[in-house]
């Protein structure tokens, strides 16, 4: 069953801010069975939301905009039943929360009135559904594991641990395979599913679809990028085109060389990453351009055939020439020119080096963190207004998502594996970027991981945000300014007042370990090397 990640963002009436906070605090206080202040333990909610992995309801506050009510949900299976379940669990609290929100100005206003009217009995789920946002990018650390399976494998891992503990010295001297077989036969009566072959976490069809989506979007973007060069090639002869290219490319590269380095003292150890990446992946880039050429060829030939009334051989020949020039112009002019434009913006960007975080909000955030191995964060940042910035955000974020979806199968982002479910979505008509994350360990270590192991990706996603630390060449510096990045991120965050985790004691790594133990026990037999590897997890 596919894990879905969704969020809802609604503007709150400033006059109802306190009421909404009280509502969320009551929701938590009245239901949590953990220690005082401890989030995440809500057995009644979890029992009635049987597909939910993580659920959070927050009020995001900032002096720059009216507060936002943000509902985040990560759940298995279809959406409709989930929102109905949420409505059944939270019921009137949900309606009351909506009453604290501004009346929408779009075509959901009438529904809002009906749901929030005095003594209304109209279900809030249909209204919420109309405001559900699909994230522009999301990431799942334990992809392909439904909640039911995570909990079943947790119970199995605990039972294995108990057996090993109870057995004491009896296990000594036994081979890994003997231990595995003994445990399997002992636990089979309780865990009948051990007799079945575990379902593939990411079915082949889904993997192929991920790659196909990425390839299709990349092809579309790059193919469009070939168009300017191809049009020039259609209008000019080779000599004229060569002269024009030299006249344009030389100054562009001179500018690029001059401006590509970090300005002033913003450089960090991450500087020069983009060009290094380009150099080390030169063969891959050449291969990709060759593939692009081959895929674009029939498209371009068809256009020539129809638009210029050419015969097929002539159309193939003409389009090959146009595409070749299109690629040359892309590499020699368009890419460096776009980077110069970005560098111009980056050099003129303002960054907020000393953002002031509301001390009360900071205290509340800290009070709610680190009760359990998992934590939650919500952050909203405003986007910079320039066209290339917005284009980077609107196109780049989904591209990053597709790339992550296709390439990251084991939960590792770089070398970090601490994220359960994270998502990026655009709110307030695309003017702000919402980030929600359910992660392991403390906020400090989470961000240290970001800074040390994945700062390029983080910088790429947030470089278009107001106040972000100075960036060079889209992915360099930025988040590598560790302290400044952390201050900026904290400043953009709000306390998570209501947060539910279906497996609050498990880290991403533990879930993977439990999965390996379970998969190993499902096998009727394992070769000695595989059995030894399996036993390493015990």
């Amino acid at each position: 069953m596919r894990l879905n990640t969704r969020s809802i963002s609604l503007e709150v009436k400033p006059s109802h801010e306190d009421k909404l906070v009280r509502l969320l605090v009551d929701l938590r206080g009245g239901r949590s069975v953990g220690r005082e202040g401890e989030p995440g333990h809500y057995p009644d909610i979890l029992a009635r939301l049987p597909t939910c992995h993580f659920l959070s309801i927050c009020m995001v506050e900032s002096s720059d905009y009216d507060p936002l009510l943000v509902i985040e949900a990560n759940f298995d299976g279809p959406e409709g039943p989930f929102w109905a379940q949420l409505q059944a669990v939270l019921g009137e609290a949900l309606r009351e929360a909506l009453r604290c929100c501004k009346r929408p100005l779009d075509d959901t206003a009438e529904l809002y009135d009906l749901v929030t009217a005095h003594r209304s009995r109209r279900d809030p789920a249909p209204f919420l559904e109309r405001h559900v946002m699909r994230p522009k990018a999301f990431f799942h650390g334990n992809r392909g594991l439904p909640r039911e399976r995570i909990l079943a494998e947790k119970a199995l891992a605990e039972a294995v641990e108990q057996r090993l503990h109870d057995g004491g010295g009896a296990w000594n001297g036994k081979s890994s395979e003997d231990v595995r077989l003994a445990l399997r036969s002992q636990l089979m009566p309780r865990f009948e599913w051990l007799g079945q072959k575990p379902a593939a976490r990411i079915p082949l069809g889904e993997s192929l679809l991920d790659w196909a989506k990425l390839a299709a979007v990349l092809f579309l973007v790059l193919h469009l990028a070939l168009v300017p060069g191809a049009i020039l090639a259609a209008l000019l002869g080779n000599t004229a085109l060569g002269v024009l290219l030299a006249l344009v490319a030389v100054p562009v590269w001179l500018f690029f060389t001059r401006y590509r380095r970090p300005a002033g003292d913003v450089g960090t150890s991450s500087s020069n990453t983009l060009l290094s990446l380009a150099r080390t992946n030169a063969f891959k880039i050449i291969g990709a351009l060759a593939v692009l050429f081959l895929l674009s060829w029939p498209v371009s030939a068809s256009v020539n055939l129809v638009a210029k009334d050419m015969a097929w051989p002539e159309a193939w020949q003409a389009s090959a020439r146009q595409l070749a020039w299109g690629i040359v112009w892309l590499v020699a002019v368009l890419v460096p020119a776009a980077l110069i434009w970005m560098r111009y913006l980056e050099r003129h960007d303002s960054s907020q080096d000393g953002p002031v975080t509301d001390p009360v909000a900071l205290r509340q955030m800290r009070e709610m963190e680190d009760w359990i191995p998992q934590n939650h964060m919500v952050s909203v940042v405003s986007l910079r207004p320039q066209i290339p910035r917005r284009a980077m955000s609107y196109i780049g974020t989904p591209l990053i998502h597709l790339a992550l979806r296709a390439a990251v199968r084991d939960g590792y982002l770089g070398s970090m594996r601490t994220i359960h479910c994270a998502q990026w979505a655009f709110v307030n008509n695309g003017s702000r970027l919402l980030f929600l994350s359910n992660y392991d360990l403390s906020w400090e270590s989470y961000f240290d991981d970001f800074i040390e192991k994945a700062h390029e990706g983080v910088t790429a996603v947030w470089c278009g945000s107001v106040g972000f630390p100075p960036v060079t060449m889209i992915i360099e510096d930025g988040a590598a300014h560790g302290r400044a990045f952390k201050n900026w991120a904290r400043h953009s965050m709000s306390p998570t007042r209501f947060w539910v985790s279906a497996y609050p004691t498990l880290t991403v790594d533990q879930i993977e370990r439990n999965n390996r133990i379970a998969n190993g026990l499902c096998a009727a037999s394992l070769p000695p090397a595989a059995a030894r590897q399996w036993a390493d997890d015990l």
Partner: protein
Amino acid sequence: MTRTGAPILRNRTGKLKQWVMNRVRAALPGLFAAFRRLWPIAKIGSVHVVTLHDDVREVLLTDKAFKVPYAKKLVVLMEGHEAFIGMQDTDAYRSQLGRLESLARPEDMDWLADATEQRAEAIVAASGGRLEVVDTLFRTVTFDILEDYFGVTKPEIGDMRIWSTRMFEYQFLGSDESLYEEIEWMAPALLRHIEDIIEKRRASGDFSQKDLLGRALALQQQGEKGWDDLFIRTMLSALVIGGPPQPPMVLPQALEQLLRRPDALASAQKAAREPDEALTFGHIFEALRFDPISPILPREATCDCVIAQGTKRSHKVAKGDKVLAAIQSAMSDPRRIPSPGSFIPTRQPHEYLHFGLGLHECFGRHINRAMFPAICAPLLRRKNLRRAKRPAGKLAYEGFFPASLTVVFDKD
């Protein structure tokens, strides 16, 4: 057949008509699926058929705009007096319901479950491995137990099962002339019988708390306001008409659905043997989702109003129009019900609408919750439970009522 020799169910449906009714009943899930997709709120003349889960909930919850259409017939059954099941949300309604609810106590449910299970076990044990369940088990146990619980003993002349079932049919299902002729004498007979019981109980001074009548008379004796004979009679009559005929309708349908699904039957039997009462009930309730007691709940518009207002399917309803809330469709709507085609006995309570919703949610829901698993468990615990050979092993209907279903099982 009853001890008076008369059949409990009217045998007035011709074979062809019955065949057509059975086919329509079987085709309903497909029809509703088509309606949900193509015409979610269908208007046929002045009748509106509402099929989406959200809209059905809206209709049932908006009782001010969509009232229950039971009042007219209730007046006939109650000799002109109102009963809560036909009333709008008024002070009188709240008062009636409040008084009635104060009689039925949570602790009664344990007694009801125990008594029901003992009675059912005795019948199943005595059956010798072959049992016609509709009448012999479900109807007998339900009437025996509920008559005791309500404090309404059997009449000396006539049969409570016939009276109750006929009046239930008249009230909720149909009203042809021959049925009306029967109702004309049965309704007063039931009321006189209850009045007689009240008189006798009062005369005997038996105000014991074991049944509802005793509790009501005790309150009357204490001078509590609102506990006059007329109220007690009307309420007991409403309970007798609305309550006992239902389990012999729904439980055969649930069993039929379980018999069609060997895995679900095995799982229900396991739950009954453990015994896991909640899970046994879950199996029965889930089975009923595929064939509920009523696929629709009728309502009548009290004003010009709009269903699904604020959505693209916004639909106007004129005052006086009939609105049919298709609860069977709502409970299979994939927009709100996860995997509606699968048998999942652990579904969330909000996914079921068997007892209705809102103002007129079934008064007997707690009683049914206690009795359903208790009646079925003794049968489900039997080994190798299966249908008898056809035709006895097939659920047969008389009109809307299940008439017979015979099962066999291994003797202990």
